[in-house]
């Protein structure tokens, strides 16, 4: 058996030469000082391959057109097993790749490894950094939610501000006079999956070729020591570093939910566009330059920074020194880190202060709760308040044992029968250990209405209803808003229906309106409501989260 394997290996070697090439590659001699500080390049390459892998898997279930793309991303997240994991790996992998590429460059910079004859290796590295940022920029648009759309509006506006080239860049990015649309989307998708990956692969190949051609950069004193072989010691160190990076990435993908916002809507101007965290510093820097100087922040300074990076090996041409003696280089890195960190922190603080009131709904989870009437939503609130789930599971989730799974048993009878059951469980089901529920008839009615809506298909989706919406619906019910207003097709017709309110009015208008309706709407019959700030927030957020159009009535018998 072993002989046969050796034969096959020899045959392969004589016909292709690949085993010998691999042997040479792994047996490459590296300086004695090589070690843990040189693992970042391998980690970056690994992350690139992982991005390609998860990217292809996502593309297998992705429709590259606006609208459909959003639906297909939701499909990946809510209906495919491991879909959320794949998107998480791709999303966090992008961030990690940028971190690792920067760490790689910082290491090369601090050690002066870009010096003669390795200038072109360094320049290729700068280009690869820009390509990595290019993935971030183009990939950001692809889920086509509000965040993606408005972030790209800003990015293309920056491109438009370029002197002379601006209009041509816009044309190239497919942006017409009416903003971004299908053409821009197709261009970004094409760049992200057709142009950038092969380009990156070729440049990485060249980069590695040059590293091998000139050898790994030696440290001072290395010329006196015997060389080591790449395999197995350095391969081991690279592998450990890759494993650590992968473990962090995997944990992030599992533990941190990547949000998906509402479908991109060019008419919703209330969205505050935000770029991805690694572009925040640029975003913040733009704020420092106004009017005609804007181009300095958007083009001139970033351009100069890139130029400076390219010129680094031609400016610093001294002999290789110990890292501890490279004070100027260390100073440059510290200054850059300080500048980047300061701008990013400023942007984050500004965000936190301005976005305090925004309630983001996570559309990456099922949003079936949006279809419920306020009465049914209030039922969810009572269901949570009364801790029903301590005895009852719902759709297989939660407690099991004492009471039946409320999604699986067919709930017989009507709301009236259920209310009797809640009040006197013993009378309806002798011997039951269920305590009677101390709520008013109207509250029990809400609870019954919610339970009658439950079925195994929607149970967990309804359980996912966010707290603000549940509490908002409770405020809505307690103030009897439904006597005059319709929500999801249920309620009175005296006042206007409340679906689509977010489209008609601003948040502050609605909040002011509660305090003094006739002031903002002359002739309105609506009484003033003096709600607590928390109730007001929850109620307004709930109303703003409603679907624009009430859901179609369900056909009976289906």
């Amino acid at each position, binding site marked *: 058996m072993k002989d046969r394997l050796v034969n096959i290996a020899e045959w392969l070697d004589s016909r292709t030469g690949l085993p010998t090439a691999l042997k040479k590659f792994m*047996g490459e001699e590296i300086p004695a000082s090589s070690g843990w500080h040189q693992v970042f390049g391998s980690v970056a390459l690994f992350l690139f391959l992982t991005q390609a892998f998860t990217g292809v*898997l996502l593309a297998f279930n992705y429709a590259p057109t606006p609208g459909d793309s959003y639906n297909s991303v939701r499909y990946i997240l809510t209906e495919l097993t491991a879909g959320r994991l794949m998107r998480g*790996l791709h999303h966090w992998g992008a961030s990690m790749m940028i971190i690792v590429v920067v760490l790689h460059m910082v290491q090369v910079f601090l050690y002066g490894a870009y010096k003669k004859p390795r200038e072109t290796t360094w320049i290729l590295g700068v280009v690869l950094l820009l390509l990595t940022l290019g993935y971030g920029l183009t990939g950001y648009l692809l889920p086509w939610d509000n965040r993606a759309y408005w972030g790209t509006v800003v990015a293309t506006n920056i491109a438009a501000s370029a002197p002379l080239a601006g209009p041509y860049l816009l044309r190239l990015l497919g942006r017409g006079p009416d903003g971004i649309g299908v053409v821009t989307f197709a261009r970004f998708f094409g760049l992200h999956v057709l142009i950038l990956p092969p380009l990156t692969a070729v440049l990485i190949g060249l980069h590695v070729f040059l590293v091998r051609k000139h050898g790994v950069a030696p440290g001072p004193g290395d010329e006196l020591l015997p060389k080591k072989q790449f395999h197995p010691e350095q391969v081991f160190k690279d592998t450990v570093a890759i494993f650590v990076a992968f473990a962090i990435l995997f944990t992030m993908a599992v533990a941190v939910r990547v949000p998906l916002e509402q479908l991109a809507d060019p008419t919703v101007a209330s969205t505050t566009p935000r770029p991805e965290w690694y572009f925040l510093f640029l975003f913040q820097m733009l704020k420092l330059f106004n009017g005609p100087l804007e181009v300095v922040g958007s083009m001139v300074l970033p351009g100069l920074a890139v130029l400076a990076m390219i010129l680094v090996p031609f400016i610093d041409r001294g002999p290789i020194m110990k890292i501890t003696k490279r004070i100027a280089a260390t100073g440059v890195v510290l200054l850059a880190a300080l500048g980047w960190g300061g701008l990013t922190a400023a942007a984050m603080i500004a965000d936190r202060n301005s976005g305090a009131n925004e309630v983001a709904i996570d559309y990456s989870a099922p949003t079936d709760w949006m279809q419920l009437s306020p009465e049914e939503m209030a039922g969810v609130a009572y269901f949570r308040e009364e801790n029903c789930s301590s005895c009852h599971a719902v759709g297989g989730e939660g407690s099991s044992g004492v009471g039946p799974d409320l999604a699986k048993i067919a709930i017989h009878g009507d709301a009236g029968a259920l209310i009797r059951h809640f009040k006197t469980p013993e009378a309806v089901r002798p011997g039951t250990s269920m305590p009677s529920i101390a709520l008013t008839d109207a509250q029990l009615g809400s609870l019954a209405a919610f339970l009658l809506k439950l079925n195994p298909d*929607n149970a967990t989706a309804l359980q996912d209803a966010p707290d603000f919406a549940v509490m908002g619906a409770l405020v809505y019910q307690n103030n009897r808003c439904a006597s005059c207003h319709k929500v999801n097709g249920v309620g009175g017709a005296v006042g206007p229906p409340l679906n689509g309110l977010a489209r008609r009015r601003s948040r502050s208008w609605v909040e002011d309106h509660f305090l003094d309706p006739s002031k903002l709407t002359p002739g309105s019959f609506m009484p003033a409501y003096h709600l607590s700030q928390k109730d007001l927030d929850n109620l307004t957020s709930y109303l703003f989260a409603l679907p624009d159009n009430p859901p179609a009535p369900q056909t009976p018998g289906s």
Partner: protein
Amino acid sequence: MKDVLPSSETMDNSGTTRRGFYMVAIYGLWGIITAALGLPALVYLFVPPKARRQNEWVEAGDISQLAPGAPVEMSFRRNRVDGWKVTSEKTSAWVVKMPNDQIVAYSPACTHLGCPYHWEQTKNEFICPCHNSVFALDGKVVDGPAPRPLDRFETKIEGKQLLLGPVRQSDQTA
């Protein structure tokens, strides 16, 4: 791979142990990474999507006028869940009132390669024009390459209306 390693002559004993440790760690860690990426990828590709929408019953048409033994092609619209899309599409079924008054609805695609077949009044047979598969009134294969009898819709009757559910593939082989 063994040839890749430098000759052991240059190694003392502790060098060999360390080398062994490196090899185990390298293969072990890469094994874990491959499994942690590969297994979810297989799950992602092969586990069917969660069906969150219930199969609906669709009204196909009035069956009060059906004559026994005379198939009628009924057209209707139904919602088809296609990945992330729900499309309303026009489709049809061959509806037969069997001699025993049972109502049967066949899927309009031949079980060979999915061509639409039709009823030949003169021969009392369903004939598929693509490769000449022939089916009897009860859906059984009479002739041709079709591997199994015609597939049937699940049916339900409410008054005069025929309601159709999902298509169940017939499992008898011809």
